[in-house]
């Protein structure tokens, strides 16, 4: 019994030895244990020992052959650690085992089972060699089965000791075993061949795919591979094209061949410290081509690690961004030029960033301005207008606005500027921030004021012409009548009634002149510097009508005046009557050639406002003209007949009064409306 136990034990060890080789293969295949070679050797030795023990069971020859066959396989595997296992080697092992089997038979060994044990134990190796994980499980089960067989059901190992009572059974078993093993082996071999074939095809596909991808990459980007020291190993055509060097010049040269000297030492130190710590570096680099042109590239440098985890190569993938950089450069210089003030404003109305000129305009340094509220810097009188534009833009009512407004500098001086305010939206279309481009127009504004003044003078001249006409006509009548009376009296032939009639006409015509002269009072002064005084609507309209009612009557234009409210307005009376007279004169001229000639003035009191409306029998003003109506120097009158300042000056006067002046485009007839506050509540400074 003891002997039998020994045998069983030694057989088990043999199985473990095989298992050892097997697991060694599995693990080394999985690359988890690097010292697989040593393990392999250990199990080889165990296999030898097992065979020696077996030899002492008096089956010397079989044991020796077993030693040779079992260990040879381990040996082959050991050798194959160095080179990749392949199909041909597998067949070598397989044929080796066949030879051993033949020897068994030639030597007349009574049982082939022992051999088949080895043979079948090798199947998992083969499987493992192809590293499929599910086969690991399979092989473990298989080996376990064999171990179990060795312990409980293996009759063959006692066959040599027990005569050949059960030899027939053993033979049958052996044959069965052989067939099973052979079938499995063949099947796996077939799959292996198939796998190999697939692998080849797959590899080829992979290669093609890789080549295509590489070609795409090479075509789209500037690519360079360098060694860890920065020596160029490979460049693509794009690199050559942009740098102006040939491949031959570049390969082997240090990458610093394209260094432009633009970047600081620290810049490159940062770059190298990043990539040498195996991190990816991204950034914009300025390089220099062979012909000395600087070009900008957006660069990604990827450290490529070898199997040992060390940096083998650096791959740099680049895209030329020179044009973009140039543009950025242009925008930079645009932002920092001397002429125009630029600033970015957030939606809260705070300055995000302003350029130097902007700062100069406001009397601050550009830095001090950031964070400041834009409305804190605007002239109080322009606040309403400015905030109106800003709000309109924020609400998306317009993409941009151009308007003039004043800045109050910290030293109290006033700067006129032309603001071009625009809304910038983010990618989703939501309002993001505002850009303001300002131009100092103080000088041209002053010039414009002078121009307006001189234009006022010329319109005064024009008016003088009109007045001369107004007066000369009645004067002509008086003169004519008087000289006719004189003639009659001189000749002595006259009737009393005729003289009385003629003289009556002279008196009434003289009254007409007197009225005109009274009305002229309104124009004796500029009125701009007058204080705001309470003036009744009646006297206001009275002075206007004095001056123009004759004109209307003579040209048979029906001048209708609505009921005059009995209130006083705080205003500059002279200026206001000029505005109304101007409107009436315009209306008069406009209806002159119409079949229906009337002009109507209505005055309404609305809470704290007074509304004057001047309507004429015309049918509105075309949109194209209406838009420009209030602009200075815009006129529809023929050259020399109008300066085009009337309405713009009128608008200015009304706005100075804190009122509004507009063309009512909803009216069927041409209608201008002036809306004035009854009381002035703001403090007016006298402008110099």
């Amino acid at each position, binding site marked *: 019994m003891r002997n039998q136990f020994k045998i069983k034990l030694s057989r088990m060890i043999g199985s473990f030895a095989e298992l050892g080789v097997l697991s060694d293969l599995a693990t080394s295949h999985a690359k988890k244990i690097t010292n697989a070679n040593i393990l392999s050797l250990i199990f080889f030795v165990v296999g030898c020992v097992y065979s020696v023990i077996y030899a002492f069971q008096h089956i010397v020859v079989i044991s020796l052959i077993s030693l040779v066959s079992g260990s040879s396989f381990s040996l082959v595997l050991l050798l194959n650690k160095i080179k990749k296992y392949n199909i041909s080697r597998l067949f070598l092992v397989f044929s080796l085992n066949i030879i051993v089997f033949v020897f068994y038979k030639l030597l007349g060994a009574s049982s082939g089972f022992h051999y088949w044990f080895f043979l079948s134990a090798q199947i998992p190796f083969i499987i493992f060699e192809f590293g499929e994980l599910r086969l690991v499980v399979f092989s473990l089960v298989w080996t376990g089965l064999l171990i179990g067989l060795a312990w409980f059901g293996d009759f063959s190992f006692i066959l040599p000791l027990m005569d050949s009572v059960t030899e027939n059974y053993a033979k049958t078993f052996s044959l069965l075993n052989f067939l099973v093993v052979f079938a499995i082996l063949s099947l796996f071999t077939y799959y292996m061949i198939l796998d190999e074939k697939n692998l080849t095809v797959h590899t080829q596909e992979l290669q093609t795919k890789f080549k295509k991808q590489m070609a795409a990459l090479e075509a789209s980007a500037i690519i360079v591979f360098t060694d860890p020291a920065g020596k160029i190993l490979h460049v693509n055509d794009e690199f050559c094209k942009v740098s102006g060097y040939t491949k031959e010049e570049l390969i082997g040269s240090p990458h610093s061949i394209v260094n432009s000297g633009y970047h600081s030492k620290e810049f490159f130190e940062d770059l190298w410290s990043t990539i040498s710590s195996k991190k990816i570096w991204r950034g914009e680099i300025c390089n220099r081509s062979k012909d000395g042109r600087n070009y900008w590239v957006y660069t990604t440098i990827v450290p490529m690690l070898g199997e040992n985890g060390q940096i083998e190569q650096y791959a740099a993938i680049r895209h030329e961004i020179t044009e973009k950089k140039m543009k950025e450069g242009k925008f930079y210089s645009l932002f920092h030029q001397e002429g125009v003030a630029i600033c970015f404003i957030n939606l809260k109305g705070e300055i995000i960033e302003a350029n130097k000129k902007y700062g100069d305009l406001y009397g601050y340094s550009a830095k001090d301005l950031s964070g400041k509220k834009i409305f804190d810097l605007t002239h109080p009188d322009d606040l309403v207008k400015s905030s109106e534009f800003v709000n309109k833009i924020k609400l998306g009512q317009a993409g941009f606005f151009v308007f003039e407004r004043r800045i109050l500098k910290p030293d109290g001086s006033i700067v006129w500027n032309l603001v071009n305010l625009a809304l910038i939206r983010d990618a989703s279309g939501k309002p993001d921030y505002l850009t303001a481009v300002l131009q100092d127009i103080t000088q041209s504004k002053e010039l414009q004021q002078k121009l307006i003044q001189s234009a006022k003078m010329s319109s005064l001249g024009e008016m003088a*012409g*009109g*007045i*001369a*006409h107004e007066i*000369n*006509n*009645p*004067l*002509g*009548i*008086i*003169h*004519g*009548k008087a*000289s*006719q009376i004189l*003639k009659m009296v001189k000749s002595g032939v006259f009737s009393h009634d005729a003289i009385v009639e003629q003289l009556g*006409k002279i008196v009434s*015509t003289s009254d007409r002149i007197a009225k005109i002269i009274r009305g002229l009072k309104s124009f004796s002064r500029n009125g701009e510097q007058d204080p705001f005084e309470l003036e009744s609507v009646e006297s206001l309209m009275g002075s206007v009508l004095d001056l123009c009612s004759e004109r209307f009557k*003579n*040209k048979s234009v029906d001048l209708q005046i609505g009921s005059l409210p009995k209130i006083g307005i705080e205003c500059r009376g002279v200026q206001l009557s000029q505005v109304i007279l101007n409107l009436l004169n315009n209306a008069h001229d406009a209806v*002159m*050639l119409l079949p229906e000639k009337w002009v109507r003035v209505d005055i309404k009191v609305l809470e704290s406002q007074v509304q004057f409306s001047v309507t004429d029998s015309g049918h509105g003003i075309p949109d194209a003209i209406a838009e420009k109506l209030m602009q200075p120097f815009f006129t529809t009158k023929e050259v020399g007949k109008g300066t085009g300042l009337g309405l713009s000056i009128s608008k200015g006067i009304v706005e100075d009064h804190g009122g509004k002046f507009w063309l009512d485009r909803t009216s069927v007839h041409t209608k201008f409306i002036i809306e004035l506050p009854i009381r002035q509540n703001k403090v007016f400074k006298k402008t110099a």
Partner: protein
Amino acid sequence: MISFKKKKILVTDDEPGYQEVLRDEFRMADATVLTAGNGSQALDILKNEDICAIISDVRMPGGNGIELLDRVKTKNEKTPIVMLITGFADLEPEDGYDKGAEAIFSKPCNLDQLVEAIYRASLPEKERFVQKYEVASNDFQIKLRVKSFDDAIQKKLFSMGRGGMFLPITGKLPCVGMRVSFLMTSNLISKTIFEGIGICRWSRAVAEPNLPTGIGIEFTHLTEKSYHVYSKLMSKGKPRAFIPKGIQKS
């Protein structure tokens, strides 16, 4: 005493009072007076009536006097028109005479002078110009020697209108209203003289583009011989201008 012998005179003025004054004045001079309130009305009347002379205001609603002047003179340059100016800068005299107006008056004006001017303008040319005269010492005297009058006009030495001429002179210019005596001698074949008396109607002291300095003279007196020179020149050109404001284009 001037008498229009019932000839028709058209008074164009938008001012009813002044219309009345003129109507009375011309009626006293035995004229038939028609009135119009503006230029278009005047043109309507001209279509149907045989008008001997027109007096027109400049500023009028619905067709002003300048338009009327243009329309009448393009039709028949010989229908006399007297323009009345009320405001200044409505019509420059040099423009008015150039457009063919026979006389220009500013309101208020001397009615006798106005009637006389209309009367003179309605007279036949010969009767109007050929009058005996004597050169006075305080006349502004102009003497000019030319190769021939045609040649002088071509060389832009003067330019002739229906009732006067433009003389491009430099230096001291006569005042408006001053009497001017002129003597132009041509020696081409035989000695020809164009001489007479005129009144300076306007003077241009500062040259403008295409308009040299000079004076506009309205002829008041011409010798018989000079009148022939005048009508010879007229038959060639048939100018519309009463006094040209510049040199005629050749």
